[in-house]
């Protein structure tokens, strides 16, 4: 994606005309609430702060509940999707932006839908919701309709909100998000503090336009978009002649820069929870296979042979060595039968249940071993001595039924052989 040049952005910014300006006091968050909401009327160019009452919190908690409550403050029985008094409401719940749970970064959006003509809610990622919460607002209702394209800019750094004419910026979200991010960020590092809400030109011509919420991806260096996709709220947004709703969050002081981040440093061998010994042994194996990602299966096989299982630390270390992601390694380690995530016993008793052995009663042999060891197939004895596995074909069908312990093959088995083999193997070392 091409970034807008500083000149273009400066020109766009110069074309802005401030229609309304509003200054507010910063608010301390208390137990997930700022205890106030924002109402912005773009017909009257009026911005006001309203309280969030204890009753609201008790009854509606936040998110969709607050949105619906605010909706019912605005609409009446005649409100249609394109009526000026159809509001777009956004709220982030009391856990918004806490990173405590998956989904706590979401923003809930409601409006009367142009597709269903009913109240519609959808949830969306991106950074807008949390930044609004940090700015000191639990919810936001935008109502009214502008006569030309406008921008709402919430500057949490300066505690200032403006409604501005914004004639030159693109309407299309993938461009607009880049332009506004470039416009309001102080520098590259500050870009992650800017979040843009916008809807493209298609939203002007259909009834199912989505709302795009941006977040700045510092690794790819691009403003990426998440969608409030349901019900055509993007269409309502453009119908109000809103070009964008931009928030510049309070500068969250990052404790590290991109180049020094834990993630960025991983391939260089920095961040791995595993011990030096593990690192060294994994490196040895990886080097044996030329650190070639084509051979990670072979590397995992060697690790399995060496440690009798594939540990989390081994996956971490191997990921560092080969550049193959941990997720991919985990996928491989759980896909193939040869790997075990829990330690196998000192000796693995493999009872063949291939077809030739099956027709010669292999199932009975497996149960005989299960009884003798007191474990189920696939299990390991408590003392860690034996693991029992039923395997498909050891390739010596002529000796069926067969079991294999280490390199030793026991053929023509009967059920009564199981205890004898366990005794013999238990006595044998190595």
């Amino acid at each position, binding site marked *: 994606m091409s970034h807008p040049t500083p000149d273009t952005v400066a020109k766009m910014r110069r074309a802005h005309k401030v229609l309304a300006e509003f200054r507010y006091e910063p608010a301390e968050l208390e137990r997930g609430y700022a205890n106030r909401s924002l109402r912005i009327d773009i017909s009257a160019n009026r911005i006001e702060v309203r309280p969030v009452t204890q009753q609201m919190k008790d009854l509606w908690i936040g998110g969709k509940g607050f949105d619906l409550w605010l909706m019912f403050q605005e609409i009446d029985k005649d409100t249609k999707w394109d009526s000026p008094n159809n509001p777009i409401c956004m709220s982030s719940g009391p856990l918004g932006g806490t990173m405590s749970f998956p989904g706590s970064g979401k923003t809930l959006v409601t409006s009367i839908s142009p597709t269903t003509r009913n109240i519609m809610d959808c949830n969306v990622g991106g950074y807008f919701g949390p930044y609004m919460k940090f700015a000191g607002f639990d919810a936001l209702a935008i109502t009214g309709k502008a006569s030309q394209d406008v921008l709402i800019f919430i500057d949490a750094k300066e505690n200032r909100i403006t409604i501005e004419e914004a004639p030159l910026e693109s309407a299309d979200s993938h461009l607009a998000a880049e332009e506004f991010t470039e416009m309001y960020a102080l520098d590259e590092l500050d870009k992650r503090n800017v979040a843009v809400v916008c809807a493209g030109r298609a939203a002007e011509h259909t009834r199912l336009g989505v709302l795009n919420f941006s977040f700045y991806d510092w690794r790819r260096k691009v403003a990426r978009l998440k969608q409030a996709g349901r019900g055509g709220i993007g269409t309502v947004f453009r119908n109000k002649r809103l070009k964008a709703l931009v928030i510049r969050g309070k500068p969250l002081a990052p404790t590290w820069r991109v180049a020094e981040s834990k993630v960025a440093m991983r391939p260089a061998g920095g961040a791995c929870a595993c011990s030096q010994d593990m690192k060294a042994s994994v490196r040895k194996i990886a080097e044996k296979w030329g650190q070639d990602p084509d051979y990670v*299966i072979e590397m995992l096989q060697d690790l399995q042979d060496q440690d009798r299982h594939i540990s989390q630390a081994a996956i971490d270390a191997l990921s560092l060595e080969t550049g193959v992601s941990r997720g991919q390694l985990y996928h491989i380690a759980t896909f193939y*039968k040869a790997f075990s995530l829990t330690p196998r016993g000192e000796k693995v008793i493999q009872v063949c249940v291939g077809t030739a052995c099956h027709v010669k009663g292999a199932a009975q042999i497996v149960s005989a071993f299960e009884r003798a060891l007191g474990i189920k197939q696939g299990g390991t004895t408590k003392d860690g001595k034996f693991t029992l596995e039923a395997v498909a074909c050891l390739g*010596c069908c002529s000796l069926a039924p067969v079991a294999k312990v280490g390199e030793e*093959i026991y*053929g023509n088995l009967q059920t*009564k052989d199981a205890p004898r083999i366990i005794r013999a193997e238990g006595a044998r070392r190595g």
Partner: protein
Amino acid sequence: MDKLDAIAARVNKDFKRYQAMLMVCTGTGCVSAKGFSIRDSLKAELKARKLDDRFLVVGTGCNGFCAAGPIIVVQPEGVFYHKVKEADVAAIVSEHLVGGKVVERLLYKDPSTGQVQPKMADMGFFNKQQLVALRNKGLIDPENVEHYIARGGYQSLRRLLAEKDQAAAQEKVINDVIASGLRGRGGGGFPTGVKWEAGKKAAIKRGEPIYVVCNADEGDPGAFMDRSIIETDPHSVLEGMLIGAWAVGSRGGFVYIRKEYPLALVRLNKALADARTHGLLGQRILGSDFSFDVKIHRGAGAFVCGESSALMASMSGQAGEPRAKYVHNVEYGYRDKPTILNNVETWANIPIIFEKGADWFSSLGTKGSSGTKVFSLVGSIKNTGLVEVPMGITLREIIEDIGGGVPDGRKFKAVQTGGPSGGCIPASCLEMKVDFDSLTEAGSMMGSGGMIVMDDRTCMVDVARYFVDFLTDESCGKCTPCREGLHAMNETLQRICAGQGKAGDIEFLEEVAQTVNAASLCQLGGTAGNPVLSTLRYFRREYEEHIRQKKCPALVCKALLRYDITDKCTGCTLCAKNCPTKAITGERKKAHSLDQAKCVQCGVCKDVCNFDAVSLRSES
């Protein structure tokens, strides 16, 4: 004189120096019965008696007659010793080699006539076989490249590389493989030459490199042909790959082999290393402009990786998930480059086609299926082992003449071919000719060549359940029909085997099996319904007995069995001691009784009883 000819002349001269050669089988079957120690103690014995300059001990690959292992064949006369133990080594040396008299007690007796058969060539197991892919079986040391060369190995390759007009010669090789009628031995049966031609065209058209791959990921339970070929004659596979690579213009090849085959891996690695030192692999092979090398990838235990696109994914260090079939591997295979994948047996057939000619090869077998096929003959059969027969031989000839029939006076019930996705063929079809098309017509398939014989103690519902359970476990889970269909069939079959079958189950199984076959993404799923469909086709009554009468006539399905202690009981208490659930009670020297409520049908009492006093029934 050429280097290869020099080696061949030297080795053959060397062999003639010896009075006799002792071919000790060191295939996996015999190795698990101490084949290596027999070989080593034979060597030691000869050395100790200072006879090692007159007699040569050769550890060979699999002889094939695994039921008779461990095996020693004394060449050139071809005396066949079976079930040899380490203790017998001294007798063989002193009586046979020194005394000149065969060791009678170690000779093979024909089980039907009781006649002693001293020579391998006379034995029913061998004399109906025709060795093409396994042409060097039992005659060479697989870990010695010079033995292979002495048998005419790498001569086809050398001749082809010496052709003046290389482009025309390469074209001719592909046309010859097409003319030979060789079809893929891995299961699909696709014409090999056509595959090569398509791959070569794609590579030229796109100007991209082309790879050749050998599929040695033999995942079918009950099949060990590919393992045996690599253990017996790895260079024939390698020479086949070299010829193929040269013909299509490839510079890089791979062998994808199961890690569960340690011996085959060792021998393959040795073969690659030897070939490199002899200038048969690597840069400028045999002084020509042709350069080619082979790398090995080890499989990690996933049946689905035998499927071509899954195998390619696994070769790139990914999980082995297949992709849709409309993308052909010959065009977009390994790393999205044209890739020719053939299985071990197919490659092993290539050199001899160019030694004896495409016409010779196509004269073997039948019209649609030329050549021979290696089968692993296992299960309830006297002569278990590895056999190579011409296509078109009848099932009866394989099972009765070569295999010696079903042992213990039991009755032949069915033979399962084609691995888990194949099917069961009943006694009524024994006269059927064995080739690609007949087997498919009978509702099974050629597969890679596993042949599991079943007698009347095998329950066909249980066999279907067994295969479906195996496939459920091995399904990669990518496409819905295979993943969910197998689960549905598995659950139903388990219910039927547990005595909880109900009306409509059979129809349900049929419908699901057909859907799985029709709608799955890859061939594993596309044939996953076969075990159910083929057993239903020939053994529907057995399903009905399980469902309606709650009866398992073969006495396999535990929940439908009933153990009882008969009046033969002498009160020895052995069964009571061994019973895991304490279901058997009784006083010493008095007849015991069995509490059916506690019995878990484990069968231990019947196994340990010395008086045949435990009866087993399955009655409604």
